[in-house]
């Protein structure tokens, strides 16, 4: 009896794993094709766009750039100056000091001749206390607003910036990001092009700046990082931005815009109550909530994506920092999916509920767990002897070559679309990383993901019981925020 039951479980599990692998492969093949089509269309559209007009046209939307900063004293002045020199006519720069313990405030005051003002701060989104709002006496810096507030995390700082902002579009960026001078014009385009639907948000590509040469705030010479982890992240960013997000854009199912470089319709952001500070995945959570709001209000909308290289950031090359980042990303994903479980598999929410949510839930959130169970299953089969060597080899070959194929495509996409990494040595080095990534890095990524799951279960990240129940409606976040505070 025991033997029969065991055999059935083994058989069923084996088939389930196979089906899971099959659907992953199928999904990624579809993503590859969709992203290729979207990239082709984007490049064709680019031929007919004159971005110079956008800079000066009275029709162009106004933009508030919001950059939260925590202990960025070393670079904050340089970065603020860089933001103020972007090529655009109607924009303001809001730097939010999130209770830094270093000399960020003093440096900003000194460098920009800032003075404390009686700015009428309207907390339409609840935030930690704002200590002061500074403006410059120098008219050259009229575009700059500096907000000094108590520490409350990135989302809280962004919310304070949103409260202060006055423009139509808000651009939320990391203060240490390097932006291309034409980044605002290019990111404004999707907001300007749409005719029948409201563009609620537009995401951009984040490039890896490690080892690259930067001149006047723009990357002039692309080089891959020296470390294995750095190179791995270059490939990973290609896969994520040039393939994943492009494909989701084609389906209008994009659920994540990078917190380091995202543009949002201010009106909709305010309607849904801004960022949710209780989650570590505030960037994903905001997009899901905005989309959910539009679906619930039955308003046609779109989330756009611009694949042009416009923003660069330094990625962590130390294993410790990277593991913390991945742990945070995993917790953010779980938290967001948990908060918005109502939309999952719900046809009322269209593509969001029936495609995007299930994909994230099954493949992104559960991947580390499924992979670990798969490995344990294989080991158990080997130990009990109920395993065919042919089967093992075939499965291994399938998964390995699939991973290599997808990564190679992402590099090819970059080469076909932008060809930034011109050095053959760099390309060879990236290809080598593709071959060893499944053995050396992927297991670590899975482990970090598992730790993220574990930390989520332990309640790391300040989750309360109430939040775990999720929102009944997208706009209910505001009530939750207030009660949490």
């Amino acid at each position, binding site marked *: 009896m025991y033997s029969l039951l065991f055999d059935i479980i083994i058989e069923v599990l*084996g088939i389930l794993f196979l089906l899971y692998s099959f659907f992953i492969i199928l999904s990624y093949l579809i993503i590859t094709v969709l992203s290729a089509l979207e990239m082709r269309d984007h490049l064709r559209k680019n031929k007919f766009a004159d971005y110079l007009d956008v800079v000066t046209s009275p029709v162009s939307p106004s933009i508030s750039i919001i950059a939260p900063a925590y202990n960025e004293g070393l670079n904050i002045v340089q970065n603020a100056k860089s933001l103020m020199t972007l090529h655009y006519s109607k924009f303001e720069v809001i730097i939010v000091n999130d209770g830094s313990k270093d000399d960020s405030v003093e440096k900003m005051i000194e460098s920009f001749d800032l003075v404390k003002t009686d700015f009428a701060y309207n907390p339409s989104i609840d935030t930690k206390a704002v200590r002061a709002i500074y403006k410059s006496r120098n008219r050259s810096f009229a575009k700059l607003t500096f907000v000094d507030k108590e520490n409350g995390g990135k989302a809280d700082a962004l919310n304070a910036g949103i409260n202060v902002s006055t423009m139509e579009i808000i651009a939320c960026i990391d203060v240490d990001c390097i932006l291309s001078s034409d980044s605002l014009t290019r990111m404004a385009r999707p907001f300007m092009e749409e005719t029948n639907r409201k563009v609620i948000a537009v995401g951009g590509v984040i490039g890896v700046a490690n080892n690259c040469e930067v001149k006047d705030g723009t990357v002039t010479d692309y080089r891959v990082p020296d470390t294995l982890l750095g190179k791995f992240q270059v490939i990973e960013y290609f896969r994520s931005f040039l393939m994943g997000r492009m494909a989701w854009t084609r389906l209008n199912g994009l659920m994540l815009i990078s917190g380091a470089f995202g543009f949002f319709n201010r009106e909709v952001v305010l309607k849904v109550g801004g960022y949710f500070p209780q989650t570590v995945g505030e960037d994903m959570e905001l997009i899901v909530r905005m989309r959910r709001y539009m679906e619930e209000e039955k308003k046609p909308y779109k989330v756009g994506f611009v694949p042009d290289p416009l923003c660069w950031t330094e990625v962590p090359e130390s294993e410790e920092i990277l593991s913390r980042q991945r742990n945070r990303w995993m917790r953010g994903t779980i938290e967001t999916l948990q908060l918005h479980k109502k939309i999952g598999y719900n046809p009322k929410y269209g593509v969001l509920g029936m495609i995007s949510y299930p994909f994230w839930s099954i493949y992104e959130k559960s991947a580390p767990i499924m992979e670990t169970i798969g490995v344990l299953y294989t080991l158990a089969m080997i130990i009990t002897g109920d395993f065919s060597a042919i089967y093992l080899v075939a499965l291994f070959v399938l998964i390995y070559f699939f991973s290599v194929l997808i990564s190679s495509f992402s590099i090819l996409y970059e080469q076909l679309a932008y060809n930034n990494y011109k050095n053959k040595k760099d390309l060879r080095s990236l290809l080598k990383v593709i071959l060893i990534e499944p053995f050396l890095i992927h297991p670590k990524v899975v482990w970090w993901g598992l730790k993220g799951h574990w930390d989520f279960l332990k309640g790391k990240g300040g989750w309360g019981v109430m939040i775990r129940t999720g929102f009944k409606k997208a706009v209910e976040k505001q009530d939750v925020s207030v009660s949490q505070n």
Partner: protein
Amino acid sequence: MYFKAKYCAKWVLVKSLLLFFMTSLSAQEDEIVEFNSIPIEEVMLKGRELPGVRFLYTVTIPSQSDLSGYALSKSGRGNIWTSDTLNFYLDALAIKDTVQNTFELEGEIQSLLFDEKIDRDGLQAYFDNLVRNELYILEAEEEAEERIGELVVLGNKIPFKPYYKLKIQVLTDIRMIILITFLSFFVLAAIILVVVIFVIKTKKRNRDVLVRRFKDLCYEPLSNFLFEHSLEEIQQMDKYGIVEKLPKNLMHKPLFKDVMIQEIISLNKNMKGEFKQKLKLIYRKLELDKHTLQKLEAKRWDIITTGIVEINEMDVVEAEGKVMKFVNHQNFYIRSNAVATLLNISNDTDLNVLADQEYPLSRWQQMIYYRIIRYTKDKRNIGHLLESKNQSVRVFGIKLIRYLGLIDQLEKLLGMFEIASEAEKIEMIRCFNLFGFIDSLERVYAVLKSDNQTLVLESIKLIENLGEKISTTALFEFCKLTSDFEAKKAAMRAIYKLDPSIFEAYFSESEDEVENKINLHLKDPVLANV
């Protein structure tokens, strides 16, 4: 060291096999399978070889006799003689019989399993397992015996499962079938993708190389035409005269024509006066306009759009009719460029092409059209756009009045104000405000009751700019009723500007926290200046 390692390996092997047999035996206990054990002696006496089993004959003799002639060798210090390890039991039995007959000594046949001594029961259990697990097939041996001399017999004697059984097992394993299906699917999909990407990459690379080459080939002749020939000289030349100076063999190639057009357009954008005329003349003389018009028949939207853009840049006015059919095309880029081209090349003073737009105008389109209309505003009847059935066109029309400073249209706008949509009203109020159109003030007070925040804010701005002291009454009323922070701030700002004394009297002593905040904000000198 080597022997030690060998011994260890053997030990591990034996233990593993034993473990295997034991687990097999325990597993067998759960199954209800009938198994008839065959005594091991029956098999051994038939002279069959058992895998892993060897035999050793040992005898002790009392005297100093020499038994080396009997295939025995002396071992140890005593008079113990042993045979070599023998594969067949019958060989050991033969030696035993010989020694017994000659010296009347019994001796002993020992069984060895993988060179380890094993008793009879152990040997029997091992044999039973071989048979049970089909590692030793009795029937095959028996059949083989009947066909002695045939090569196939030797094959059948190998006591392993035949291949066809493995094949059947592979095909009956559902997981294996699914995996093979996935593998085949994946390999097929991967091959298709790789081939497609490879083809695209190769095509792109070849195209890039050709484009670079063609650009080099075009550049010099075009420069010569521009700087060494007058407009009249070019006019007098026929197609062949111009082709003479260009790479003749390439002139029929579509890609070369495309590169040539792009080079002409690029130069045209950067040149002025007669140079522009020369370029357009060369374009016409080389009949590149025909190539451009062919693009309008293409299926790909980007090729059609390229054709339309070329018509626009090269002023191919005779293509107006052909472009007209694209003005309400479902593709955004085709539609946008078609309208832009017609605004450029046609004599449509009433801007009918714009007024008759079926799709809403995006901001991107408005930006492009504004750029074109800005330079020809005197010839255009912008007012006609206000009569369009398309609301976004009417809104754009009002924006144009503001951007182009068409003050004469303000009365018309005021006439339309009551029936206008909120989006139109917002633009109208901006217009009135910008041009200080005082007649609009009375109409705007009513708008303060609207739920549309932008509309309200624009109205307050207008009142702030054009209002009088009396206007503050309406603004005070508004301040009392509204809970919107931005609107209250705007209204207070307007009151502060219109009548500072009333503002002070009312707000400086206010107990309302929001009003106090705004009061301080409005009086802050730094904020007032930025």
